[in-house]
C-alpha cells in the first residue's frame, strides 16, 4: 500500500478565507488528504460552493466575520465542541489594498491590521484554549513575500504581513507548551481574485514588466495549498516558528 506522509485521515482542520483563492484550494486539498474540514469566510453562498467541491465526508461551513476579533475564541471553541479538537488551522483570510503612506489614515491602518494580523493572533488565542487542539496541531498563517521585500505603495500591507511572520515565531515559543506548532507560508503573487484586482490596476505593459521579476512565473493557489498541507501534516511534526517562502524565485534574483 502506498504511504502518504501528508495523510490527514479523520483530522479536523479549520480553513479561513475558504470562499476563494488560496483558502478554497487549501480546503479542497486538505479534504483530499482525508481531513474533516470546517471552512469559514463571510460569504455563506461561496462557502457552500467550496463545500460542494470538496471530496469525502465530515466537512461543514461555518460562516463568520473574523473582523469580530473578541468573538473568535468562543466561536472556535464552539466549532471544536461540535466537531472535535482541531489538528490544524490554515488562516488564509486576508486583504491587500495598495496605498502609499501619504494616504494611509488611521481607518485604513486599522482595517488592514485587523484583517491581516489581529484575526491571526485571535485564532492563536482561540486554538490554544482547553479542548480546542490535539497534541501536535499545526497552525499556519498565510503571510506574504511582502514580509521580506519592500514595495512602494504597499507599506501597510508589508507591515501587517511582516507582523504575522514575527507573530508565528513568538507563538511557536509560547505555544510549544500546549504542543501547538505555528508556521507561516509566504507567497508572492498568486493567480487569485485578489491578484486580479492588483493586475487590473496596472496596464498590460506594466504587468508584463512586473512578471519579469518571477523566474518561475507567478504561483497557483494549489502551490500554496501544498505547502499549507505539508505544514499541518506530520511531515512538519518538527517544524515550528518557520516561514516558508513561495515566490517562484522572486527574492532569489
Amino acid at each position, binding site marked *: 500500500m502506498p504511504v502518504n506522509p501528508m495523510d490527514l485521515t479523520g483530522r479536523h482542520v479549520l480553513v479561513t478565507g475558504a470562499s476563494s483563492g488560496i483558502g478554497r484550494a487549501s480546503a479542497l486539498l486538505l479534504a483530499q488528504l482525508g481531513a474533516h474540514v470546517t471552512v469559514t469566510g463571510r460569504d455563506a453562498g461561496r462557502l457552500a460552493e467550496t463545500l460542494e467541491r470538496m471530496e469525502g465526508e465530515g466537512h461543514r461551513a461555518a460562516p463568520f466575520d473574523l473582523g469580530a476579533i473578541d468573538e473568535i475564541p468562543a466561536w472556535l471553541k464552539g466549532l471544536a465542541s461540535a466537531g472535535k479538537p482541531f489538528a490544524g488551522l490554515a488562516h488564509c483570510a486576508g486583504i491587500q*489594498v*495598495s*496605498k*502609499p503612506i*501619504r*494616504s494611509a489614515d488611521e481607518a485604513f491602518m486599522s482595517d488592514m491590521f485587523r484583517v491581516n494580523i489581529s484575526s491571526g493572533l485571535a485564532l492563536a488565542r482561540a486554538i490554544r484554549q482547553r479542548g480546542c487542539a490535539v497534541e501536535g496541531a499545526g497552525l499556519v498563517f498565510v503571510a506574504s513575500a511582502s514580509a521580506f521585500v519592500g514595495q*512602494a*505603495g504597499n507599506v501597510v500591507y508589508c507591515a501587517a504581513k511582516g507582523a504575522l511572520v514575527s507573530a508565528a515565531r513568538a507563538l511557536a515559543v509560547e505555544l510549544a507548551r500546549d504542543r501547538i506548532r505555528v508556521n507561516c507560508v509566504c507567497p508572492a503573487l498568486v493567480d487569485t481574485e485578489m491578484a486580479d*484586482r492588483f*493586475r*487590473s*490596476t*496596472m*496596464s*498590460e*505593459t*506594466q*504587468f508584463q514588466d512586473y512578471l519579469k521579476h518571477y523566474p518561475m512565473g507567478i504561483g497557483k493557489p494549489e502551490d500554496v495549498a501544498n505547502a499549507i498541507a505539508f505544514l499541518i501534516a506530520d511531515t512538519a511534526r518538527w517544524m515550528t516558528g518557520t516561514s516558508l517562502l513561495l515566490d517562484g524565485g522572486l527574492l532569489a534574483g
Partner: protein
Amino acid sequence: MKTKEFLALLDDMLELDPGTLTGAEQLSDIPEWDSLAVISFIALVDEQFDLILEGEKLAEAKSVRDLINLLGGRVTD
C-alpha cells in the same frame, strides 16, 4: 459628487494648495502626479465610488479632465 469637491480631494491627495486644480491641467504638467499618486488615485476612487479603475485606461489619461471622465458620470458639474 460635484467636480469642485472631487478636485478638492485631488488637491489634498497631491498635497497641492486648496483650489489649485481646475480640471484643465495636463497630468504631465503636475510634478506631484507620479507612480505613487497613481496608486493613491486608484485607492481614492475605490473608497469614494466603490470603483476599481482599470490600469490600462488610467495609463491613457492625459489630463485631469480625463481622470474625471474615467468615473463615468459619478462626478458632475
